[in-house]
């Protein structure tokens, strides 16, 4: 049997990305196209949700169902989609403001569920679409439009947060290393459980500090080290490396029960396939309970 190789082109949508030339998000988009192509997942079985922000436009550039929702709410939408149809491959996307700022609560609680979805965060440490305000991952002291005297808060550490919140695939990619990024996304999609891919995705317009070069001077891949991805403590320790050396790759990976597999009401298969008339069949029985 000859299997037709799945081409990357099949996963590209008709729409041309509107990002600034050089934006880190292009590499993420390519990573998503590549991962889907390699895994040969049919377009019609993929749903990508997004919030609001430059990066949240990504789903529109992929030939898959897209739900472009509210700022910060990409994960709840993805949770709902997955619970309604566990046969779908569900990806949530967004930026650091979307996921680690306004939507931070959903980030933590989605990880607690270890629900089988992949969350890709394009982390550029700045608000791009609103023209350059401080973000939850901006460095303390950073001067931005909203912090002219320097930011007075320390950044959120998404990797550490993911590790303590129950995510079972915790990884970081870098747009300057697109091949590694594609593989990281591919493995995240194959993982059963909540997978995080935090992507260092430079904003070439509003972040003049964390540039491609700034990252290139610091980034190294965990896969090249003797890093044990089963070791939560080692992962935790790696998650604190930032100033001079920044690890990318998989920090932690575990095989743990997932919400969607254990939910009692999903034991007969995806909700979307269940009969609508169950209520009618049990109505008399339900009424009897009220007497």
């Amino acid at each position: 049997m000859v299997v037709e190789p799945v081409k990357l082109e099949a996963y590209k949508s008709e729409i041309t990305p509107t990002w600034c030339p050089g934006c880190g998000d292009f590499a993420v988009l390519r990573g998503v196209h590549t991962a889907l192509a390699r895994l040969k997942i049919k377009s019609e079985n993929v749903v990508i949700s997004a919030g609001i922000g430059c990066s949240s436009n990504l789903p529109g550039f992929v030939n898959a169902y897209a739900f472009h929702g509210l700022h910060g709410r990409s994960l709840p939408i993805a949770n709902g989609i997955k619970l309604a149809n566990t046969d779908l491959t569900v990806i949530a996307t967004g930026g650091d403001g979307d996921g680690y700022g306004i939507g931070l609560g959903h980030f933590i609680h989605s990880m607690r569920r270890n629900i089988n979805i992949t969350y890709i965060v394009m982390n550029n440490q700045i608000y791009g679409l609103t023209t350059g305000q401080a973000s939850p991952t901006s460095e303390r002291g950073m001067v931005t439009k909203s912090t002219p005297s320097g930011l007075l808060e320390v950044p959120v550490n998404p990797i550490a947060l993911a590790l303590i919140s129950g995510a079972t695939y915790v990884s970081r990619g870098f747009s300057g290393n697109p091949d590694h990024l594609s593989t990281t996304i591919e493995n995240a999609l194959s993982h059963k459980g909540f997978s995080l891919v935090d992507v260092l995705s430079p904003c070439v317009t509003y972040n003049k500090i964390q540039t491609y070069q700034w990252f290139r001077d610091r980034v190294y891949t965990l896969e090249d080290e003797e890093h044990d991805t089963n070791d939560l403590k080692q992962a935790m320790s790696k998650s604190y490396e930032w100033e001079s050396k920044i690890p990318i790759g998989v920090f932690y990976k575990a095989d743990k029960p997932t919400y969607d597999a254990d939910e009692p009401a999903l034991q007969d298969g995806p909700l979307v396939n269940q009969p609508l008339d169950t209520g009618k069949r049990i109505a008399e029985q339900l009424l009897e309970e009220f007497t």
Partner: protein
Amino acid sequence: MSKHEVVIRVGGAAGDGIASTGEAFAKICSRSGLHLLAYNSYQSVIRGGFIYLQLRAGRDKILSHGNKVDFLIALNPLEFQRNIVDVVSGGAVLYNSDKIKPDPDKVPKGVTLCPLPVNEILKDIGRNPILQNTVALSSLVQLLDLDVNVMNAVIRDYFGKKKQSVMEINLKVIEAGYEYSKSNLPDFDFDLNPDYNTKRPVLTGNQALGFGSILAGCKFYCAYPMTPASSILHYLIAQSKKSGMVVKQAEDEISVINMAIGASFAGVRSMVGTSGGGFALMTEAIGLAGQTETPIVIINSMRGGPSTGLPTKTEQGDLFQAIGASQGDFPKVIIAPSTIEDCFYSTIEAFNLADQFQIPVIILSDLFLSEHMESIGNLDFNSTIERGEIVTSNDSDKLYRRFQYTDTGVSPRAFPGTSGTVFQASSDEHDDYGNIISDVFTDSEIRIKIMLKRMRKMKFIAEQLPAAKLEGPADADLTIVSWGSTYNVVHEAIQILQNNSKSVNHLHIKYLIPLQKGIKEILSNSKDTLIIEANYTGQLSKLISMETGFQINHTLFKYDGEPFYPNQIIDKVEDLI
């Protein structure tokens, strides 16, 4: 002449077991073929506070929890004193005489004291403070001349599954209490006319909303705990295995509604439930549902506002919040069910409207409607499920247009996983394919076209909804206008007024957005008009004025947190005509 209905009040503190006592009595009534209505007045505490449960039962349909009390069961001295003033002449107080020593001067004339020496009654059985409730209840069953075996059966069912020993103790307590009452307490002339061959289902509004959603084929219910909506969550999770519904408690109401929108987008009927504060958090996503044309049913069980307000008290103060929920204009429906049965049917209807028109549908209940128990008549289970037009495959060469411009404004939906239908649903303004038009350049022509498409639905919704109906004599001297949970109490008041030769009719409004047809015509033909609302500003009155230009003459607004009593309405009407 013997009385055919009875009003009972159980007064105590949180933690005294009032709710379970009430539930047991409700079951006894249910299995005695009696009608019943019970209202629980409580506070936001787990222990202490002033709590009472008022139950009214009889052979005919009960429309409110009544005015004055026939039997007061006082569980502590404070409640004895607080509530005794509401007992009618000829009524009685049942109390544990070991704990409560009444001051005879403070007992109103005509009220009989019925002391229950609980320790003496239970001397051979055991001591547990909560058993005093069983003593009081069995005494009440005796005084009302109901079959004690029905009470035994109810207690057996209640404890049977849990603890055999506790059940046996309670059965002994019932016997002792019943016998004590028979030998020591006076006769009261009640004939409730029980029919032990009839069982009347007793349910709360929230149970009816939940039950309705199961019948409607809802497969995803999401909520964050909030009084008075939480019992929808409790009811649905208890039925989850049978109904096959995923019932999810999420981290906050923002997540709640977004999850439900996600589930609905993926193809399952989805519902959320909350109260005003949680509804406020859901607001932005209600617009998202409107914009992405994702069907969803949202229950807001209103409680006293503003802010966290009166967490355990009733109000109809969220109508404007519901009307104004979310920025911009988009089609939506707001339904206010009037009775327990109507909660059941309205939920089924809400799902059908949501699916047919691909819109958010808001159900406005309130604490009284959601939480009070009531016996109901037969329910019709033959409702149909209308999912609207759904695309099951697209084999043509043409790309699927999820938001295709149509005459009705409704475009056939496709769920993810359907071949040839990949599309984008977008919160940002988009074209008929779902592609965003906001970023590159804002195409005003498409913007107008897609707005017209969405808003066109409202015309068809308005045509489909039933017209407003006037109940009672067309030439009455006064028309009472009301909405939501006040339907039954207004009816009771009108019945009494008619017996006093007052001619009053009733316009009850169920569909608020779009406002039902025919309201202006009815009101223009009325001799005089009075609106009754449980809020401060008269939100429906303002809505009617906005939509029809008609100004209602008189108002009766109540915002003390308690539901209307029939007498409050009667007094107001008697002032007017």
